[in-house]
């Protein structure tokens, strides 16, 4: 088996590139499934406390900045479009374009984190913090610190995913810039894209649930 000719990126235990690609993708989807369940725990956390304290959740959510939340939603959706276009560029063998789209994606991710930093630091100043660190006065309803526990747990885990995503995208940019990918092999870019879209997908739910309580 070892002396047949194949591309360097094809591992010897795969019959062909198609099988290797499909296997990688399936592994990635199983990982994304675990991610859905990881965030799922926090969504259940949210559902329990919102159903117990509906008025407090409404009053506490007014402290969040809808404008910043909306801008961040637009930023993240745009980054999802750019990474999808990066993968498409890979598929049609336009590596330079792909690198540019990936750089735009990582810059948008950084923009998201900067906006998140401003939101967080504002809340730290006001003492709108989780659990026993909560010192803010001025929210009607019992136990408003629970809302901020939920807020920081959910956006914190999401923010961590954005940071990890940025690292992975930078790694993929480096490899793409070295010319390691082509329309024949771009699996790492595709997997990064799937991960990044999931991060966007989670935010699509976090945004209305936290910022837009009706």
């Amino acid at each position: 088996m070892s002396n047949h000719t194949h591309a360097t990126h094809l591992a010897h235990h795969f019959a062909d590139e198609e099988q290797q690609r499909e296997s990688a993708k399936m592994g990635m989807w199983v990982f994304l499934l675990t991610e859905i369940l990881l965030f799922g725990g926090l969504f259940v956390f949210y559902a329990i406390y919102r159903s117990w304290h509906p008025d407090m959740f409404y009053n506490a959510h007014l402290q969040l900045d809808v404008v910043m939340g909306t801008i961040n939603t637009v930023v993240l959706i745009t980054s999802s479009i750019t990474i999808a276009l990066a993968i498409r560029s890979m598929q049609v063998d336009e590596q330079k374009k792909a690198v540019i789209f990936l750089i735009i994606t990582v810059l948008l991710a950084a923009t998201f984190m900067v906006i998140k930093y401003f939101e967080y630091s504002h809340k730290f100043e006001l003492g709108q913090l989780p659990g026993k660190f909560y010192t803010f006065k001025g929210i009607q309803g019992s136990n408003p610190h629970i809302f901020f526990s939920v807020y920081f747990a959910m956006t914190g885990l999401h923010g961590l995913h954005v940071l990890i995503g940025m690292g992975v995208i930078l790694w993929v940019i480096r490899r793409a810039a070295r010319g390691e990918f082509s329309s024949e092999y771009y699996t790492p870019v595709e997997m990064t894209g799937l991960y990044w879209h999931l991060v966007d997908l989670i935010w699509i739910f976090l945004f209305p649930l936290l910022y837009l309580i009706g």
Partner: protein
Amino acid sequence: MSAHSEKTHIIPVKTYLAIGGLLMALTIVTVLVSFINLGGFNIVVALAIASVKALLVAFFFMHLYYDNKTYLIIFTIGLIFLTIFLSLTMFDTLRRDVVDPIEAQTIRKDAIIYQQEK
């Protein structure tokens, strides 16, 4: 193009941009709707719009619509288990007081309970 591209569906740029535009439009709609008081329906509308957006991302950006259906099955299994997790928990937490009336109590003696200041 090589034989490889026969198996990989390449989506036109304008499809990506159209889906992106739709996602932006739905974002604006969900923000605007949140300022209209629909009572209990606000959360229903917000989640419905979010679900449509999520499906657009999953089907087009994540290629589930074009790819091998195995990935769609894995994704769906995740959603099914999330639904079981959420609904069974809600059956418990929403109905606890039906069996026993709930009285407020702190787990730790020195815990702070933030009460309504009216």
